[in-house]
């Protein structure tokens, strides 16, 4: 599919510039763009009304990875002031204990090259650029110099949440967490679940809908597709974990006619990574670079909650693949723009079923 098919412009005023709570609104009052795959029908609802679309026996799959303050302000050995945004890291278990990480650098004009030295916290933490990642735009491999403290601790001390230009103010890490985040490790919030309040989750469980919790530690999100055909893009690896309990909950729901409702593209990619051809989900952990493009046959997912995505993102490509009809997605997005839906991590959501 041509990248141009995923090209549209979101008006500036529809970029969510602050958390909904900052405007005195509840998280679960985000708007919900409901897209029915079979009929192409589109509905405009609120997120808390998601209960209208769930049935007893369904299972809602949440990514419980928590956001870490992954942006480190620092200087390079040639005097450039930069911000290093840590993305996935290389270590055996995804907990960030290793010293080799992947990162992108801000500003975009920063000149980064192999063997460049980096200094953070006035030299308290130092690192060296190893190499540019092949075939993946913007991404570099870096190595922290040995230190007496784990990187996690340094992040807590020196880091801040990754923030984009459409958010003028600084918001604490709590604003960048889902209410059910439990295992820190994501560079950016798995934001499809941001609108869930504990009360809403409780209500959903009370309906006889199961909750299954998986982990996928996200990397940085703003790596746009630059290839002419979207399929030619390469995704970087992210660490996931599906526990035996989660797999069992999901498989049991499916076996008894329930639907698997993935909250976000991260649980979707995780489950599609560990599912077999029959859609049975197997417990496991590891790294996935699964890139889902139109034409992909979903094995494990029956419904998808996801944000409103920008053009040229792998997340929009995934949503379009799940919807199965590029025209329906475009139509729904056009309606969302007309109706003033908000984009990005503090914005509104869509439910595709």
């Amino acid at each position, binding site marked *: 599919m041509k990248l141009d098919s995923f090209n549209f412009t979101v008006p500036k005023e529809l970029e969510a510039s602050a958390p909904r709570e900052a405007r005195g609104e509840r998280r679960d009052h985000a708007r919900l763009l409901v897209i029915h795959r079979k009929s192409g029908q589109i509905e405009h609802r609120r997120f808390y009304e998601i209960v209208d679309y769930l049935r007893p026996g369904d299972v809602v799959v949440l990514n419980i990875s928590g956001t870490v303050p992954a942006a480190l302000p620092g200087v390079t050995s040639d005097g450039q002031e930069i911000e290093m945004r840590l993305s996935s890291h290389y270590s055996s278990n995804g907990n960030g204990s290793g010293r080799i990480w992947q990162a992108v650098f801000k500003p975009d004009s920063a000149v980064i090259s192999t063997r460049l030295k980096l200094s953070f916290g006035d030299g308290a933490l130092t690192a060296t650029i190893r190499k540019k990642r092949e075939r993946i735009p913007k991404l570099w491999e870096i190595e922290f110099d040995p230190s007496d403290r784990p990187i996690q601790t340094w992040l807590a001390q020196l880091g801040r949440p990754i923030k984009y230009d459409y958010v003028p103010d600084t918001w604490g890490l709590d604003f960048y967490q889902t209410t059910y985040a439990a295992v820190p490790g994501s560079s950016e919030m798995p934001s499809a679940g941001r609108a869930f309040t504990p009360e809403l989750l409780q209500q959903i469980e009370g309906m006889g809908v199961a909750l299954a919790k998986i982990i996928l530690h996200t990397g940085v999100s703003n790596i746009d597709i630059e290839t002419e055909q979207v399929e030619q893009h390469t995704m970087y690896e992210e660490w996931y974990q599906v526990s035996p309990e989660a797999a069992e909950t999901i498989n049991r729901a499916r076996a008894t006619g329930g639907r698997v409702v993935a909250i976000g593209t991260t649980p979707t990619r995780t489950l599609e990574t560990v599912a077999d051809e029959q859609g049975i989900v197997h417990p496991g952990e590891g790294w996935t670079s699964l890139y889902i493009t139109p034409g992909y046959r979903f094995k494990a997912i029956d419904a998808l909650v996801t944000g409103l995505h920008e053009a040229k993102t792998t997340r929009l490509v995934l949503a379009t693949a799940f919807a199965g*009809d590029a025209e329906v997605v475009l139509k729904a997005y056009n309606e969302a723009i007309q109706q003033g839906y908000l984009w990005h991590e503090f914005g509104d959501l869509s439910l595709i079923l």
Partner: protein
Amino acid sequence: MRLDTNTVVLITGSSKGLGRALAHAYADAGARVVINARGEAALEATRKELQAKGAQVLAIVADATKPTDIEHLIKQAIERFGRIDVLINSAGILGPSPRPNLADFVASDLAELFRANTIGPILMTQAVLPHMLRQKSGLIINVTSDAGQTGYPGWGGYGATKAALELVTESWSAELEGTGVRVNAINPGDLKTEMHQLAFPGEDISDRLDPFTVTDVFVWLATPAGASVTGQRYDAPNFEQP
């Protein structure tokens, strides 16, 4: 019969007759349907019928025997739906009407028949194949005829193109073994269609079958129950779900 929500079927020659009935049958089973014909007016009418029943339908005017048209057709289908699960080569022509005996067949008419009924389906199959191989699954159905099985007088030209298509079906099936792409042939029987009327000009064909009554086997082959079938030939009017 129900198909997966994201099943995509492309049917050539689907503005009228059997192709139109197949488009309705697949839409009723829940598939997304790409319809195609050379004539815009009839195609648009069929598109509206399908859309009115809530089907997701894409209509492309194209000649399914011309490489540039075929490329355009497949590209549009992929751009919109991302995949093609089923290709039904339903487009075809009868040839001159009234039907000449072989002794009287003009070479250019014969060439035209083979181009439309045999070469077109081969070119269509070639064009969808990269997508189906990527998907590791796909179903191609060639619409054949009992005239391709038996040498009836006056049916030698048309029959030869359909006999060739049956052989091509078997060859494709053998060549694609193990790829997940399946190729089958279906004889739809004698139908109440414009084409059949052309074969029997001036005759009453009202006793022939309604094309809407012979669609079951076409859809069944795309369901999980039919998923292992390849290289086979079916007579649609006699089909009963196993």
